[in-house]
């Protein structure tokens, strides 16, 4: 099932997250717009510090720290205007209509409550269930994330379980109220490779089965390639390129995307060229150059790049989300006929 042009479940325009600093408020997320459709998996890729986790948290109305601020020109979840929500309203949404899975399953569960207790806590907070109903719902959810002996798992405490199992439980907690949107922030980074694959497949199955839209935050393009329908590449708080996964990976337009792809180790036979890194490192917020924030690390950069911020090309709200867009003054050009959009 590929994403269609039906109405998005989540539509965000011009999302900004700002933090105070000596030079005034700094935008760590700077004008991100995104749309998610039911059942699709959108990958949000970038190096650490590019603002992808803050974007994810901002979708749940969580600002970084007490002095961080989240704003947007429009933020809708189905027919609900998220921009109008106060903190109480957000609390009703979190965990029920938009949910989240975190990177560290080791520490993301409360160590002093049993698994069943924590699952039922989420259910009873958002649903008018009695104890029995909550128990049944919790057990059903555990079964649907692949546990055979649900009653035993519910009695366990987090420290008695392995990382992969804990991540499954966190996914169960996040999905137990059947949210429309799931934000998964590096859900497999802390896991070993075989467990990673299981968790990724689980996420994809759940998205397809329940129609939940997933925003998968990761630094790993291989994960994007494996399960995402679409991908967005983020650099210094802005989207530098977005499009269908296959188009973006095969025909990257933005030099940064190309750099990330070149830095990706591939074990395909015949490929002998060494893995290349991108020179330099991500500038800290506040030390970003004017113009394109990638200009300092980009070999294609000229005066235009250093003075003018490139806009996301084809960023027309009327255009379907499946379109491949990029924010670069001098995009890479691929042979005619190979580019999909």
């Amino acid at each position, binding site marked *: 099932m590929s994403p269609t042009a039906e109405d998005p479940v989540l539509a965000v325009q011009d999302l900004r997250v700002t933090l105070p600093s000596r030079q005034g408020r700094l935008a760590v997320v700077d004008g991100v717009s995104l749309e998610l459709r039911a059942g699709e998996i959108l990958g949000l890729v970038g190096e650490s510090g590019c603002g992808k986790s803050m974007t994810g*948290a901002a979708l*749940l109305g*969580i600002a970084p720290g*007490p002095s961080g601020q989240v704003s947007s020109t429009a933020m809708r979840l189905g027919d609900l205007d998220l921009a109008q929500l106060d903190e*109480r309203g957000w*609390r*009703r*949404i*979190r*965990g*029920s209509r938009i*949910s*989240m899975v*975190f990177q*560290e399953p080791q*520490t*993301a*569960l*409360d*160590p*002093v*409550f*049993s698994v069943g207790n924590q699952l039922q*806590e*989420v259910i009873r*907070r*958002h649903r008018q269930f009695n104890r029995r109903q909550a128990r049944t719902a919790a057990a059903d959810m555990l079964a649907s994330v692949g546990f055979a002996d649900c009653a035993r798992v519910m009695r366990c*405490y987090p*420290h008695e379980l392995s990382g992969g199992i804990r991540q499954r439980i*966190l996914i169960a*907690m*996040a999905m137990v109220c059947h949210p429309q949107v799931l934000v998964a922030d590096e859900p497999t980074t802390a896991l070993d490779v075989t467990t990673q694959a299981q968790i990724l497949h689980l996420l994809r199955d759940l998205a397809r089965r329940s129609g939940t839209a997933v925003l998968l935050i990761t630094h790993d393009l291989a994960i994007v390639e494996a399960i995402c329908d679409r991908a967005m590449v983020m650099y210094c708080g802005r989207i530098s390129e977005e499009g269908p996964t296959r188009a973006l990976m095969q025909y990257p337009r933005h030099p940064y995307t190309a750099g990330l792809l070149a830095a990706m180790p591939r074990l395909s036979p015949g490929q002998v060229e060494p893995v290349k890194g991108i020179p330099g490192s991500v500038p800290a917020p506040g030390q970003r150059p004017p113009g394109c924030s990638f200009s300092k690390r980009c070999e294609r950069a000229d005066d235009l790049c250093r003075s003018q911020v490139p806009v996301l090309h084809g960023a027309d709200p009327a255009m379907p989300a499946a379109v491949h867009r990029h924010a670069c003054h001098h995009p890479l050009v691929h042979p005619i006929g190979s580019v999909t959009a």
Partner: protein
Amino acid sequence: MAFLLRKLAHGLLLILGVTLVSFLLMVYFGPDQTYNLLGKNATAAQIQEIHQQLGYDRAFTSRYIDYLHDLFTLQLGASNSNGEKVIDLLWRSLPITLALMLPGFIIGNLLGAGLGMLAAWHRNRRLDRLISGVSATGMSISFLIIVIVLQVLLCTPQGLNLFPARGWQVTDLPSYLYYVTVPTLSLVFITLGYNTRFFRAVFVEELGREHIRTVRAFGASPAQIMGRHVLKNSLPAVLTRVLFSIPLVIVTGSLVLETFFGIPGIGKVSFDATTNGDQPVLQAVVALTAVLFVVMQTLADLAYRLADPRVA
């Protein structure tokens, strides 16, 4: 079970240690009691006899073993100053101390926990700065100053003169409240800064944990986060501190408060014993509180285990 035995063995070893220290200080290297008991003009035979009675002529180990035996069979001897049996003296004064200290101890901890919670939740914002600043100031004021100021304000004609400055004639609830109020206020003020700081630190640490982010992302309110996840996780630390502070508050707190307000509890008894050089009383108080402390420590370890599934 093995854990329980190990803890008990550890506790027993500590008890041996603390009794050894108190034996060394109070008996073995303590001042010679001969002339206190006999007066200046004792004969050589009398001195010989009293030395034998006090065991000065015997070996260290046999004296220590006797000391332990007496301590654990509660044969604590009689007070040098009025001849009352030490065990009776302690038994009489302990309830007074408990009645005196308990309200302040409980209120001080509850208030500290409340303020610490507020400060932790509003960490680094104005309310936190205010609470932390006030508790730092509170910690900078000596106990003695707090007690003196409260006494002048509430118990003397220069102030409001609402409560008695000294004494403990408690017969019923109104008289209890009459005598207990100012010491309780003093204890609350003395401990509030420390308590608030402790609870704030514990709650800040717990609030920073990742599972708090998880429950927030699943829609928990501040009350649910604090009341359920933070409180239960900080229970081991809180229990440990509360249990540990019981002997300290009973002895140290009552030492100052009872001396100051003239209340005949354990503290006053120890103070009088110190000033009079009343060895049997002082020795009993030191050894028994140390033992009580070790018992509390062992209890705290057990409580820790019950409250935290990870160490079970």
